[in-house]
């Protein structure tokens, strides 16, 4: 029954936490590093943070990257600290991966790949959103 399904979706408790959308590739701007800093600061104050990776932002999660080759301090390695800051909700837009011919092979675990619709629903459960 479709009506009960819709009901269930609407009944999901709105998360009061912060959503951070990452939409930029990792090495050519500071956006990725800035988003990481904000996430860790909120995490260290025990605020709920969810991370969303969309568009070129999905490149931040791809495995086997090496920032040292382009003389950049590898902030991507710090992503593995998310679990210590209780940042457990990490969402990736599947369509963005497909468009870029990327496999679902990430350098951190516990990443949830969501379809465009699910990605939107997950984002809309948050009261506050920052986009980098």
């Amino acid at each position, binding site marked *: 029954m479709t009506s009960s399904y819709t009901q269930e979706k609407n009944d999901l408790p709105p998360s009061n936490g912060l959503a951070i959308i990452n939409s*930029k*590739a*990792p*090495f*050519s701007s500071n956006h990725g590093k800035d988003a990481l800093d904000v996430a860790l600061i909120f995490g260290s104050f025990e605020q709920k943070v969810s991370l969303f990776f969309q*568009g*070129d932002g999905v*490149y931040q999660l*791809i*495995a*086997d*990257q*090496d*920032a*040292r*080759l*382009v003389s*950049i301090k590898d902030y991507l390695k710090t992503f593995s600290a998310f679990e210590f800051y209780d940042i457990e909700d990490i969402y990736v837009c599947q369509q963005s991966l497909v*468009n*870029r*011919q*990327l496999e679902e092979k990430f350098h951190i675990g516990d990443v949830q790949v969501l379809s465009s619709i699910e990605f939107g629903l997950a984002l809309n459960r948050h009261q506050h959103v920052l986009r980098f």
Partner: protein
Amino acid sequence: MSTLHLVRQSAFATNDFAQCLSVLDHQDSIVLMDDGCYNLKHSLMDSLIKRVDGTLSINVITRHAQARAIEISAAVQHIEMSDVVELTFNHTKVITWQ
């Protein structure tokens, strides 16, 4: 009159690469550097490789692609930054797409 095109932006994020291809001449050269390396996986690249008739050369900076974990493709030439210096001398002008 040949042009060297330095492509530095991802075609998934900006329109630069499409604009570059629209003005591309058959004796020109393209260098993919920085986020331009992501264009190797863009559909525009597939159509460009089909268009290549031997005179047009497509190059990518090896380290920039490696840093981004982008597969080394056989369809393009792999060069270093020092080779870009030589390329600038071999072309009458340079356009940077950024």
